[in-house]
């Protein structure tokens, strides 16, 4: 093929507000502030070709670890780097490996936790799909460190492509003598097996995951003993998250000092966040620990779409919390997030704007926790459901002042009375929203209104007669036939027939914007269409989602 060496302008990225294309990735606002270590090969190599990975220094760390380093040396390097578990809790990886190495009993096992169940997080999927060999390489190095001969890669069933990519990569690694017996002729044996999850959020908890690998229900168990002492089939087992394993090769290749130079005093290296929700630039971002939320949301993320106002960012999935605007300058590291009532979790970062109701979000997470509770501990099984019931009552406008006290007293019971992380952290979304957005709870309870105009029982839909052009679009789309009107004349919504699905709002052309969400004049009763239309002129109106 003949190349002319000219940049192809038509393929370049053009910023939404700019006219000139940006030729280099490192100059694009979204990538400029990122530091790619774990995601360094994403989009650069063909994940189905091991040669591509090797061409970018792949398996060099493995060779170094197997030929030049002692197990103690590897553990010392990972400890000195300050690598902490990327699955959420942030336990020091080197310390975990050292415990496993010292623990009596053989064989020892390694597990890669790829059961990325946190809604809103998908960095593990991306690593498994775009750089599978980095995970394998990390595991072989870990195996040498702890003296394991067998590893398991537990990947959730909802990730079919990740499962396929890992199977392919493992096959290639075996073919090249990088997995199996006598790796690189060093006499070291290690092999991995892919285990497919079956759809249970709790199986991401380490002891539950081990129970699942053993073929049973994913029930967590009491710790200690920790898996590093007694894990799979009662044998010492190191279990680390996908992102943790994928960090290991870079640490061994470039040295602990380099890695420890990134991040903060206690949180080293980078962390991948999935920046999603009400944000202009969505996607995975890998940033050094300690970067502020503001830099992520406004620098990398490019702010909130449609000129809406930032309200909160939800971090850490169902275990995490909602961080408000006032804390936008919070540095993102394990300790700071914990002090704000949240948690690093797996790194989901869901941005919420003024059209997101915080009570509804709390309810969403508590329902999630209630459904996903395995049922072993009563405070988790019953407590999360009871909390969800109270929250549902509040969103319906039936809450009382006592409900807030009830939520606040149930939360510590659920936290303290649960065996595993699911129950211990399930109340966090409620506690953080109560802490930072109490006014929204109070508006639902005392004023019977939803400030974000989300909770169906507290809102009404109406058509602004001044804006309506009578185009029929909403009338045609309405699933219950609640909209009447003639061509060219103002349409009217029958509040009694309206099920508040919001389709009329979505189909109303952006130029017209005649459909409005409003707070009904009298709570509970939507009132006549004209009266709610008038209410549209009041300050509490909203458009769009």
């Amino acid at each position, binding site marked *: 093929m003949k190349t002319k060496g000219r940049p192809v302008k038509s393929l370049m990225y053009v910023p939404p507000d700019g006219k000139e294309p940006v030729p280099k990735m490192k100059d694009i606002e979204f990538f400029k502030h990122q530091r790619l270590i774990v995601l360094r090969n994403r989009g650069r190599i063909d994940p189905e070709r091991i040669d591509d990975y090797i061409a970018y220094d792949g398996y060099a760390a493995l060779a170094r670890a197997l030929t030049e380093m002692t197990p103690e040396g590897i553990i010392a390097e990972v400890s000195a780097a300050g690598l902490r578990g990327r699955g959420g809790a942030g336990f020091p990886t080197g310390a975990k490996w050292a415990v496993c190495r010292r623990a009596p009993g053989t064989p020892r096992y390694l597990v890669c936790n790829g059961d*990325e*169940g*946190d*809604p*809103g*997080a*998908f960095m593990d*999927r991306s690593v498994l799909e775009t750089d599978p060999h980095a995970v394998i390489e990390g595991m072989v190095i870990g195996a040498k460190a702890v003296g394991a001969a067998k590893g398991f890669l537990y990947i959730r*069933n*909802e*990730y079919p492509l990740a499962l396929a990519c890992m199977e392919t990569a493992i096959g290639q690694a075996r073919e090249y003598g990088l997995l199996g017996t006598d790796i690189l002729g060093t006499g070291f044996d290690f092999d991995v097996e892919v*285990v*497919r*999850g*079956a*759809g*249970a*959020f709790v199986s991401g908890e380490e002891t539950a995951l081990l129970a*699942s*690998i*053993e*073929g*049973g*229900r*994913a029930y967590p168990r009491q710790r200690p003993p920790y898996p590093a002492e007694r894990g799979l089939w009662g044998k010492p087992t190191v279990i680390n998250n996908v992102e943790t394993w994928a960090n290991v090769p870079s640490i061994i290749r470039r040295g602990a000092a380099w890695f420890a130079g990134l991040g903060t005093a206690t949180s080293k290296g980078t962390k991948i966040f*999935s920046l*999603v*929700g*009400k944000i202009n630039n*969505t*996607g995975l971002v890998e940033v050094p620990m300690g970067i502020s939320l503001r830099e992520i949301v406004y620098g990398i993320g490019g702010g909130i779409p449609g000129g809406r106002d930032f309200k909160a960012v*939800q971090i850490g*999935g169902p275990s995490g919390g909602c961080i408000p605007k006032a804390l936008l300058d919070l540095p993102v590291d394990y300790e700071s997030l914990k002090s704000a009532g949240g948690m690093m979790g797996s790194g*989901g970062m*869901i941005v*919420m704007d003024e059209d*997101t109701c915080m009570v509804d*979000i709390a309810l*969403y*997470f508590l329902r*999630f926790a209630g*459904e*996903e509770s*395995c049922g072993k501990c009563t405070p988790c099984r019953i407590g999360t459901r009871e909390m969800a019931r109270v929250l549902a009552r509040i969103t319906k406008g039936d809450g009382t002042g006592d409900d807030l006290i009830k939520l606040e007293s149930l939360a510590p019971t659920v936290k303290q009375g649960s065996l595993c992380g699911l129950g211990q952290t399930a109340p966090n979304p409620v506690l953080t929203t109560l802490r930072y957005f109490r006014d929204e709870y109070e508006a639902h309870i005392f004023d019977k209104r939803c400030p974000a105009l989300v909770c169906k029982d507290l809102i009404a839909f109406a058509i602004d007669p001044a804006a309506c052009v009578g185009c029929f679009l909403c009338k045609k*789309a309405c*699933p219950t036939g609640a909209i009447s009107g003639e061509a060219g004349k103002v349409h009217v919504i029958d509040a009694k027939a309206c099920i508040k*699905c*919001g*389709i009329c709002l*979505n*189909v109303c052309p952006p130029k017209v914007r005649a459909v409005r969400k409003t707070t009904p004049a009298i709570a509970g009763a939507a009132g006549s269409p004209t009266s709610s239309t008038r209410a549209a002129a009041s300050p509490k109106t909203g458009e769009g*989602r």
Partner: protein
Amino acid sequence: MHPSKSELEALTEKSKGQKRALIQVLQDIQDRIHWLPAKALEHVARTLGVPLVQVYGVATFYKSFSLEPRGRHVCTVCLGTACHVRGGQALLEHFERKLGIAAGRTTPDGKFTLERVNCLGACALAPLAVIDGHYYGRMSEAKADSVLAGVRKDGDP
């Protein structure tokens, strides 16, 4: 669809006596016929040497297993957090109205099953729906209508 005895034997034979293989064996059967009939569970219990109560326990614990026959077309609506804040719930309710069934159910003619999932990890595409294995990002009610109409017209696979 019920699996024949020889089919069940083929799917379970390699795991004979291996208690650890329980989940994987159930998944193989589920992949093949899209549900787990009682007969299949009994066969698995006998072959693997696992008590039937334990097989049922596992089959009912994990969400990827179905003890009822599923429809020929499967619609899955994602309700992860990103999808939730971008209108996933309204989308699910739209599917419920269009198909006339609640989430988790199958239409009486066996044509459609509607499911909800807690996150498919494609949050940048929220709200997301998967229909017969195809991922539809930035899904809207109008888009859902046209996809469903297409599936209906295509008839059965």
